Structure formats: C-alpha cells, structure tokens
C-alpha cells in the first residue's frame, strides 16, 4: 500500500500510484491527460471561488488608508471587482486562455513575471534537496534492506520514522539555531546570497551553476553556504519517505527467487543488489520520488519562509496573507500544471521500469 507513506509528505500524490495494465498506452495517456485537464480546471476554479470570498478587501493594499470611498470604488472598478462573480469568472478564464494571469495586487507586476523571477530560486533549492534526499534515501533503504532486522536496520528505522514525524518549519528553525546562532558556521537566513554579494552573470538562473560556469568560485561557495540549511531541511522531508519505501520494496525483491538465481549464477553482491534487485523495487520508489518532486518544486512554503528564500512558496504565502488573488491564482495554476506533468512522466517511467506494464 503506497498510501500510508504518501501522507508524510506535505503533498498528497494525486493518485499517482496508477493501476497496472489496461488498454493501449497512448490511449491511456490521453485519457489521463483529459482527466488531468479537468483537475487543473477544478483547482483553478476552486481557487477563484474561494479567493473571491476571502474576507479582507484587496483594495486596502492598493489605496492609502485615508482614501475616499469614491477612490476605493474606482480602484475596485478598475480591477473588475465590482462586476458579478460570473462576469469576473468569464473574464478570468478568457485571460487565462491567453496566458495572462493578471497583475499581482501586492507587487503590481504581471504575475507571470513575478513567478518566473522567483521560480529559479525554488528550482535551485528544490533540485539540490531532491538529488541529495533521493540518493541518500535510496542508498539507506537498500542498505537497511540488505541488513534487514540487524541493529543497524533498527537504528535507521528510528532515524527515518523521526524524519517522517518532523515538522519541517521546526527542523529549519532548529538547524538555524544550531549552525547559525550557536556554532556560527553557516550564514543567516537571508535568501540566496549574503548581503553585498552580487549574483553571477545569468545563464541558467541557478546561482550555483552560473557561478561555476563563469568561474566565480567565491560566489559559488557563498551561494552553496546559503543553500545548505534549507536544502537539508527539504532534503530530510524527501529522504525519509524514500528510504522507507526503498527498504520495503528491496526486502521483498531480495527474498525473491530471481535474486537467488542471480546469486547462483555468480554475480557479485553489489550487482545483485543494485542491478537485479533494485530494478524490481523501482516502481514504489518512482511513485514516492514523484511525490517528492511535487513537494520540492511547488516551493516548500514554510521552509522558504523560515529561510527568507525568495522562491514561489514564499510568494504564495504572501499572496494568501495579503489577499493577492492574481498572485495566488498564478501559483495554484503552476502547481496544478506541475502535477499534471509529473503524472505523465511517472506513467512513462513506469513502463520503462517494468516491462510488464508495456503493451
């Protein structure tokens, strides 16, 4: 059962544990895409409805407190907030179809611009956490499975279960308290670079990569130091569930007949474990990794908040707190589309991982 492990992530996999078999592959994917489009529409509409009911009037952000009622009304009219909900919704959908997400109430800039500006920060942090968390998770899971029921296995289980029960925002604060306040070895939570350091010339928008490509070694180190703690925090959230499913799937694979066959043919333990067994344990690992990707790339909202990370998670948090409908809409749309993409990729990966799913 995959469901029990899913819940530990702040993202609930949108039914990504797909059923096996069934129909032509392309047709199946098309069917899923159609379903996914409905889901995206539903998510966007739900956000629209809820955000229009939200209590604080967004115009308070845009006009000075001493403004007259007439001034307010004018602003409301300008934003289209005085027309009926149906008209607003039609307007919203029409703009959406043209790729226009409107302008943010809080920054005054087009939402698409806001998001694309903040996305690289989230991606850099998310990717680092994902790569490290997944690799360590799989290795630990395989290792624990090989030594199942030993003292090491029980010790690792304690670590993983604690990781699953750990509130991310608190882990972030605690890491800061130790490594920034007490030990002073890592920098303050002020975003991607220390004060006074300019970002490297833009190539990929990822500071680590750009600094390397342009040979700015000190910027690379500075940006890495800023990344370590938030990446470790998100990475812990990625690591624990992946280690858990890997261990479970590997224990099953290692006790199988085909692993015994591989041993009887003289393959080395490393080859047996990492090629013959791991390949068979891949499906649940893929599912869990997909959840982790969704979690990390949709901007681990609270972690970005704790570390002052200028990513889209923090943008979404501010948007909600300030009733910035367009900003929130844009973020929700991004996440929904991200999920759909992950959905499709997972489906393709499944068929690569397990030939029995190919038709």
């Amino acid at each position, binding site marked *: 059962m995959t469901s029990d492990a899913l819940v530990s992530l702040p993202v609930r996999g949108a039914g990504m544990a797909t059923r096996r078999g069934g129909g032509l592959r392309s047709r199946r994917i098309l069917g899923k895409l159609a379903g996914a489009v409905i889901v995206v529409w539903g998510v966007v509409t739900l956000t629209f409805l809820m955000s229009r009911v939200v209590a604080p009037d967004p115009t308070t952000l845009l006009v000075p407190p001493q403004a007259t009622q007439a001034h307010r009304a004018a602003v409301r009219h300008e934003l289209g907030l005085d027309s009926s909900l149906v008209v607003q919704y039609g307007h919203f959908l029409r703009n959406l179809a043209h790729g226009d997400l409107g302008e943010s109430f809080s920054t005054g800039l087009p939402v698409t611009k806001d998001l694309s500006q903040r996305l690289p920060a989230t991606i850099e942090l998310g990717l680092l956490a994902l790569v490290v968390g997944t690799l360590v998770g799989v290795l630990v899971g395989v290792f624990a499975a090989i030594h199942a029921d030993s003292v090491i296995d029980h010790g690792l289980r304690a670590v993983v279960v604690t990781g699953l029960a750990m509130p991310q925002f608190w882990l972030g604060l605690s890491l800061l308290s130790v490594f920034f306040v007490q030990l002073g070895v890592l920098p303050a939570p002020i975003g991607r670079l220390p004060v006074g350091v300019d970002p490297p010339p833009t190539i990929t928008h990822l500071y680590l990569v750009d600094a390397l490509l342009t040979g700015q070694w000190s910027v690379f180190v500075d940006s890495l130091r800023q990344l370590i703690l938030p990446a470790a925090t998100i990475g812990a959230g990625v690591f624990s569930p992946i280690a858990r499913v890997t261990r479970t799937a590997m224990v099953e694979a290692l006790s*199988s*007949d*085909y692993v*015994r*066959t*591989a*041993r*009887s*043919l*003289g*393959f*080395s*333990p490393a080859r047996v474990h990492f090629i*013959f067994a791991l*390949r*068979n344990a*891949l499906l649940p690992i893929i599912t869990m990794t997909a959840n982790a990707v969704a979690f990390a790339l949709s901007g681990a909202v609270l972690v970005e908040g704790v570390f002052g990370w200028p990513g889209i998670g923090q943008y979404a948090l501010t948007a909600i707190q300030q009733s910035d409908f367009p900003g929130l809409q844009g973020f929700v749309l991004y996440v929904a589309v991200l999920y759909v993409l992950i959905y499709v990729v997972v489906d393709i990966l499944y068929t690569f*991982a*397990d*030939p*029995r799913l190919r038709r």
Partner: protein
Amino acid sequence: MVTPQATTEPDPILVVDGLTGGFGRTGESPQVLRDVSFQIPRGRLSAIVGETGSGKSITALSVIGLAPAGFTRTRGSIGFEGRDLAGLDDRQYQAIRGSRIAMVFQDARASLNPTFSIGYQLAATIRRHTGVSRSAARAAAEEALVGVRIPDVKRRMKQYPHQFSGGMAQRVALALALSCRPNLLLLDEPTTGLDATIQADVMDLIVELSERDGLSVCLITHDLGVVGQHCDHVVVMRSGRVVERADARDLFESPRHPYTRQLLAASELGGHA
C-alpha cells in the same frame, strides 16, 4: 548411523563428507544436517530424494554456497574438482557459481528476473564469467537458447519472462544455468508444476544434454517416478541424514532402508525400474 554401502565411484565429481550444520548462532538449534556424506558420479544423472524437511534442499544450496542466512555449517567438506568448496571465500565461490556449478530452481518463471529481457540475462551471465564482447555474448546467448530447443530465438531474446509459458521458462532457466558450460548442474524439483507432457520433454532434454556434453546432473526431488525413469544413482535423505545411497536399479529392486521402502510404497513404484 548410515549403512555404508559399496557405491564408491571411481571418479566422482562431487564428494560431500560429513556435512553437519543447523540454524542459530552455533548451528546447533535446531540441527538440520547431520553428518551428510555422499558422492555424485561424473557425467551421469543422480538424485537426492526425500520429503519436505529432509534436508535435501539445504544440502544442495550448501553445495552451491547459497545456504540461507541463518544456517551455519559446523563440520564437513564439499569436494569439487579437487577443492573443498566449504573453505572458499565469497569471491572464489562467486567465480565458481554459474561457471563450474549451476543450479536451476523450482518455479522457473519466478526464478527469472521479470524486469530484464531474456537476452540480457543470458548475455550478462556469459559476460560475467567469460568477459567476452557484447556481441559475442549475444551470439553465445542465442546459442544457449537454441541448445535448449527454443524456437524463434531472435524474437525470444528480446522478450521478458512474463511472455514465456511455464515449460518455455523452464527451458530458459536451463539455458541460463548452462550458458557458461558448468560441469555440475543441480536441479531443484525441475518438473514440479509442469504438465505431464512438458515434464517429459524437459526431462528428455536434460538427459540429452547430459549425454551430449558429459554433464553431471543432480536432481533434488521427492518425485520417485522421475528418478526411476532417468537416474543412475540415488541418495535418500530423511530428517537431515542420508539413509541410503545406491544405484537406482538396486534401490528400486531391493531397497534396504525401511524409509526407502515407505517412499517407494507411497509412490506406488516399488519393484519397477
């Protein structure tokens, strides 16, 4: 005690002597193998016969060095090609497994890796032990499949285990085990779960391969019917001990041990050879 019987082969391929062991840290509690001694003659078919729990499987697994994790050998030797396998380290054992000694397990379909093509599994095994090029390994793999009389080899190479029937999977498992031309082949219940006609086909194939390549084969089975039809030499085990070793003809005609008689009576084969 085991009745010593005069079945000393001139040149046995495998000599198991005094093999003793069990579960638990000391291999004492519970003891599952007690002073197991027997020889497997070269170039012929033999069988280790016994009911579930007689120790026949764990004996075979010990020979190939794959006894289950909890099992500890406390005493005894396994002589093979002039070496005591019991004294080998892991690496030395890995070099022998698959190349000098191979084993085919019960339920062939489950014993093939579901996520790799048949061709890959064969070629990887061949490359593991011979280090030949990819293309040479593929050619050898095709040859191995032809050798176990699988039709349409080119297409079959690309297929996966779930696309094979039980009988065909059994042949693939045989091809895999024989791909590096071992001298000794252990077959764990090779025909259980197959239809009678397919059973006969598989056994005929094994006999033929044995005769053609001078392969020594040891069946591990409870099926005395198969043993009576095909084997030359039989080792009977019960509760971790060898109770009788004899030429198949002698055993079926005049079983000495009462347990062997029970087995024969149960399989309604007493007196037939």
